[in-house]
């Protein structure tokens, strides 16, 4: 009993009873509309909040001393050294304030079977798989460790899986319902030929999507032309109507005299152009090919990566992101030159071999960065709990050669930029969403504690209670 009590004080999670409020998204079309709906939801009115710290890390590498932040309605409304706390404002003080950590590659908060599934397609949506109930403990851990946002994906088993999302660990409305489309080229089991074959299949899928997009564009052009033509035609027909009527009345009379059937003139016009058959999968993928959303591709081995880089050159507008990329060092220059970021999971990839010379292991992040590649650090979407380790992984990367700034960038501003959230989160600036951490010291130092986590202006974790 005694010992038992130590474990049994489980607080009922608020998340359970919180309305998840995932905006509905019928196909891609309404995504934008839903986005607006979320901004609404995100900036829900909350009581004022004053945060004060000896050091505020505005963005990785850039910090100011003795700063206060005023948070209102989910946003940072003021920053200054001498801000006074308004009436009834909650005040939280700490050593350091920085932007909340973002895991760019996670499955936390996602229903497990969907995350594993091999049956998803490009039209499947991570927002359909968010589980606000099943993972309270997992998500609570994230709030404690300062990882307040994750880019989640589904369909780990599928070659090309669905549309990912950026969600908040506190279970509030997603920050982004259309974060990226992800694909996978990791099947070391296969023989080299079929491994390359996989890459080519992916290429042709992308090509198919591109063609579909082109066809749709073409149809829209044709339709415009046709509508103009018809409009003109209708105009002149209306003008000539009186004439035509006269002529016809004449004909009718003649016909009656002749006592024969009246022959109407044959009317012809070109048919309205037909749209290409709607294909939700291609329509969805086309958005990635067109660069509207990033395309995250999980690839480890040099064989696939080389082929991938080759076949994707034609897709100039596609914003590719490499995930995993154990062998990406070999292609660092091209990645840097093409501006392709790499989401590194600084963990040994194969047991034992982990720390062999051939496998960069934890050093990968540092090496890539030194070669001018933008590095993000993600937990690898292996298990929901893994996201909890994000700050540890970033720290370990520093311990193996990555600069502190780069490491912090890799889990804050970096993910925000790559997934089009820089206007909302990732740095600490007036007007941005208040997704912040109040810390007892340097964000990555092992002896640092997260004193408070603020998500969308709400205090979702505070050390000690």
């Amino acid at each position, binding site marked *: 009993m005694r010992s*038992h009590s130590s*474990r*049994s004080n*489980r607080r009922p999670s608020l998340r*359970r*009873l919180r*309305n*998840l409020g*995932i905006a*509905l998204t*019928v*196909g891609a079309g309404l995504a934008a509309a839903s986005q607006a709906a979320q901004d609404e939801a995100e900036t829900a009115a909350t009581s004022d909040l004053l945060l004060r710290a000896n050091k505020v890390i505005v963005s990785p590498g850039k910090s100011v001393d003795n700063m206060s932040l005023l948070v209102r309605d989910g946003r940072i409304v003021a920053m200054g050294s001498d801000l006074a706390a308004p009436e009834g404002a909650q005040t939280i003080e700490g050593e350091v304030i920085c932007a909340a950590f973002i895991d760019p590659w996670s499955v936390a908060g996602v*229903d497990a*079977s*969907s995350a*594993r*599934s091999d*049956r*998803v397609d490009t*039209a*499947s*949506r*991570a927002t*359909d*798989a*968010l*589980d*606000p*109930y*099943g993972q309270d*403990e997992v998500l609570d851990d994230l709030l404690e460790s300062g990882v307040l946002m994750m880019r989640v994906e*589904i*369909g780990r088993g599928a070659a090309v899986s*669905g549309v990912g999302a950026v969600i908040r660990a506190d279970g509030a409305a997603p920050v982004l319902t259309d974060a990226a489309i992800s694909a996978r080229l990791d099947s070391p089991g296969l023989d080299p030929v079929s491994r390359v074959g996989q890459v080519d299949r992916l290429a042709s899928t992308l090509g198919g999507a591109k063609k579909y997009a082109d066809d749709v564009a073409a149809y829209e052009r044709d339709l415009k032309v046709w509508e103009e033509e*018809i409009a003109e*035609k*209708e105009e002149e*027909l*209306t003008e*000539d*109507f009186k*004439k*035509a*009527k*006269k*002529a*016809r*009345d004449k004909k009718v009379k003649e016909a009656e005299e002749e006592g024969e059937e009246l022959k*109407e*003139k044959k*009317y012809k*016009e070109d048919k*309205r152009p037909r749209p290409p058959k*709607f294909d*939700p999968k291609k329509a969805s993928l086309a958005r990635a090919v067109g660069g509207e959303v990033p395309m995250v591709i999980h690839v480890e081995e040099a064989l696939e990566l080389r082929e991938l880089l080759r076949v994707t050159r034609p897709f100039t507008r596609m914003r590719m992101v490499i995930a995993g990329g154990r062998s990406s060092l070999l292609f660092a220059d091209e990645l840097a030159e093409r501006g392709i970021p790499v989401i590194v999971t600084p963990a040994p990839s194969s047991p034992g071999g982990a720390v062999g010379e051939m496998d960069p292991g934890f050093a990968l992040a540092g090496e890539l960065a030194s070669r001018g590649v933008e590095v993000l650090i993600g937990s690898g979407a292996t298990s929901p709990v893994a996201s909890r380790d994000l700050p540890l992984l970033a720290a370990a990367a520093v311990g193996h050669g990555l600069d502190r700034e780069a490491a912090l960038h890799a889990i804050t501003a970096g993910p925000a930029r790559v997934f089009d959230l820089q206007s909302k989160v990732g740095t600490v600036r007036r007007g941005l969403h208040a997704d912040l951490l109040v810390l007892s010291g340097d964000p990555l130092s092992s002896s640092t504690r997260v004193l408070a986590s603020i998500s969308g202006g709400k205090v979702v974790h505070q050390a000690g209670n």
Partner: protein
Amino acid sequence: MKSSLTQPLLALGATLLLASSAAAAPQVDKTAVKAGTVITLTGEAIPDGVIVIEGGRVTAVGAASEVQIPWDATVIDQPGMVAFPGFVEAHAARGIDRPNETLDVAPFLDVKDSIDPVNFYFEEALRQGILTINVQQGNDTVVAGQGMVVKPFGMTVEQMMVKPRSGVKISAAPKRGKTRATQAQALRGAFDDLRMYLEEMVQRKKDGDDFDRREALYQGRELEGEAAKGKPLACSGWTIDGFERIPRGEVDEKREPLLRIVEGKLPVIMWCATPMDVHAALRVAEANGFTSTMTLALAPACWKAAPKIKESGCHVILAGLEDNELDPITGESVETFVPKVFHDAGIPFALMSTGDSNRSLWYQAARCVANGIPRADALAAVTTTPAKILGLTDRVGKLAKGADGHVVLFSGDPLDITSVVEHVILDGAHVYDRSKDVRVKQLFDGTRPPGTASDTSAEEEWPGDGDGPEDDDDETENKG
């Protein structure tokens, strides 16, 4: 050995006899039921009450002293017994040959084509005093066929029918082989298809009309006749202008039921296995405008979504009373008595009976009382609330003037552990008498008729050695 062969046949014969006699029973018959207590569910119970049934409908209910029994009525007098309206089963995927199709989306199907009137389930329902049953397809589906409300009596589906096309079963929980994401996608897809199909139809119609107009102009004809006028198809999620142009008859009959759902003309019963399914369910309903005509059928775990459900205003059907979950931190099991949650949240709920003949609706209601729900509310959950869900408020679930002539005579209080159903009067006909029920003995000593669950593999799995459900209360019929 021989007896076990012959008895079922005899038994079957017996029921056939009963059935046909009732089927033949002329509806003009007058019946009066006198009972020691009459539970009307419209007010206080009536000591020595009388129920008069004429032409299959209740014409009078009241104290023996007040109600005039017609001289020519057949009187069933049971001073020792309790008269009860009979239970209403809001949802059952039983009495049909197979609960689900392999098709993902098949709203054009109708259970009326698969109901088996001599299925043991209906006989058992009668024995349990369940006189109104909404037969629906199973939960292993995306959009299943349309259900039908029946009474557990009659030799043909027509005789059993109470209300056809009572609603379409839709599942927010993944069909076999699907995941939460792909299920939601399939659901969305089903309604997107309908929308695009209709839009295309409208477009084609419009093109045709425009062409005719121009042709007429060209040929110098006056165009006679006006394009049809009416309202566009509008639901909370989307609208289709020019919908009125489509003659109803031209809509593909396979798609027609979905259209009726969007129009709010065809109710939906939405199955949810987990609370997150509830969110999915409400999303698709909201998007396609059938929230107000949707009833949620819920597995126990869904209690966590009660606040969300409260907002939606949906009624619920509870499959299973108790939720057992393991606290991931302490490893302890945490039990939640589900109906209490919904009761306290003020959400109207109906209960469902399980496959266990000892866990029928009376038992479900009794457990609610045991767990602190007022008796009246517990009884409502197996009578008036399901009646409301099925749109049969005036007909079943209560003993009142104008209601269907159904009366169940219990040996004691319906919720008493020792009470049994002694007589059933259905539409005024005396269709069940326990003293003549050969099967009661058979249920004990085991000679079971064909078509009973006992020769399926189902309960070979029934736990004899502890590998079964954590709690009998927690039985939910999941995949139909």
